[in-house]
């Protein structure tokens, strides 16, 4: 059966599908919900997913609308990435087994006013289901899904080597805040400057995505991201050392607001990407230190293999104390 208008990628035998799928592939491994200040990160490397049998089974998980969107992508690589992104979201959410077994195919999604995808649950599904939040980001070589409970989450991925067509400072002058331009201008090594540009971009994207407003809903010049080192409190650029300190955001919309209820983490993922995570801080109980953000990173090929990741493949750069 040919599904796509332009490019024939996957063929499917829908009659035998269920039997074959169940027999040939492992079930999704269920996972406990993240705790309040925890974010679960799941990622897929598209290049590692080669089996057309697997891909055609993945396609069947998608809604008709999602299949249509995938088919509109130009070329096999983009179609595959689009497919894997939807599969990652659906299978990841299903693992948390709200109300018992959840079929990834049965999940429903809606968009908020700015276009941020959100889960849509039926009225009869229990309250805890609506507490699950997620956000997704992908490049051509990596797809990332972040999951939290209660806290809105924004994630953004960028290849470390991602080159700008424009000059970095010209771009920053156009879209970033004066503080950030000053920060980037102060870095003399172009390689380090480029790295910090990419880090700033992903952090800013993760913030507007966590807020659910997106780039058009909250222009980047309306808030500043700062790296604050613990010694002197001033932001200063540094190289790829471990833990460059705290990442904070200052809103320029309302100069009195510190936007201190948002917390960031910056990771180097799979050696090739910067990943920025933004989520709401836990409400601090009077006199107690607020719970720091905790990250659990897993690499997955849904229905095939899951792997807990630590060490160099998920190296924290900043933000986690």
């Amino acid at each position, binding site marked *: 059966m040919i599904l796509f208008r332009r490019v024939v990628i996957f063929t499917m035998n829908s009659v035998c599908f269920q039997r074959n799928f169940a027999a040939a592939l492992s079930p999704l491994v269920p996972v406990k919900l993240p705790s309040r200040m925890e974010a679960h990160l799941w990622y897929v490397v598209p290049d590692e997913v080669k089996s057309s049998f697997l891909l055609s089974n993945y396609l069947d998980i998608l809604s008709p609308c999602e299949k249509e969107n995938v088919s*509109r*992508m*130009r*070329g096999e690589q*983009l179609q595959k990435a689009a497919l894997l992104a939807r599969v990652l979201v659906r299978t990841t959410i299903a693992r948390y087994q709200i109300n018992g077994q959840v079929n990834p195919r049965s999940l429903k999604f809606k968009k908020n006013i*700015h*276009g941020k995808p959100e889960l849509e649950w039926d009225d009869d599904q229990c309250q805890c289901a609506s507490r699950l939040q997620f956000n997704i980001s992908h*490049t*051509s070589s990596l797809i990332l899904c972040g999951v939290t409970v209660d806290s809105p989450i924004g994630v953004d991925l*960028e290849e470390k080597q*991602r080159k*700008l*067509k*424009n000059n970095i400072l010209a*771009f920053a002058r*156009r*879209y970033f805040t004066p503080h950030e331009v000053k920060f980037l201008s102060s870095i003399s090594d172009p390689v380090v400057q480029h790295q910090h540009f990419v880090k700033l*971009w992903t952090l800013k*994207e993760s913030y507007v995505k966590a807020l659910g407003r*997106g*780039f*058009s*809903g909250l*222009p*980047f*010049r309306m808030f500043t991201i700062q790296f604050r080192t613990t010694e002197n409190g001033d932001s200063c650029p540094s190289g790829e050392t471990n833990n460059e300190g705290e990442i904070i955001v200052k809103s320029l919309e309302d100069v009195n607001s510190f936007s201190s209820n948002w917390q960031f983490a910056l990771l180097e993922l799979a050696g090739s990407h910067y990943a920025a995570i933004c989520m709401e801080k836990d409400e601090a109980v009077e006199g107690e230190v607020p719970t720091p953000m905790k990250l659990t990173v897993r690499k997955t090929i849904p229905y095939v293999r899951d792997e807990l990741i630590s060490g160099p493949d998920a190296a924290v750069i900043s933000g986690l104390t």
Partner: protein
Amino acid sequence: MASATGNSICMKLVSCSLKPTQPSNSGISSLRSVSVPINTKGYPSLVSRRGSSRIQVFCAAKPETVNKVCAIVRKQLALPDDSAVTGESKFAALGADSLDTVEIVMGLEEEFGISVEEESAQSITTVQEAADMIEKLIEKNAA
């Protein structure tokens, strides 16, 4: 008010209180007092802005504007010269992520000498939409 110039018909801002419709650049099926051919080449396209109860009617962009936008998009996304990029092409379908889209907008600003508000970035999803916005901004600058 309508005036015809050459092959295209230009209509100036029409203010009418219609119910806000879904944002769409593919035309609106029924209109109170104006009947316009919709979605045919060279004719005006109707655009309803999100949250607005006014309909703004303006010309579809000139082919040379569309071609320039295609060239900028091709360059940003490193697409081969023979790849099909037309007015209807969606940036996202061509593989543009948010950084690409922002760079494309920056390239358009430089090429056409305009300034595009970030808030408008959401409404530029295709080459045609970008070209239409460019011409609208050029017209506004000239006025």
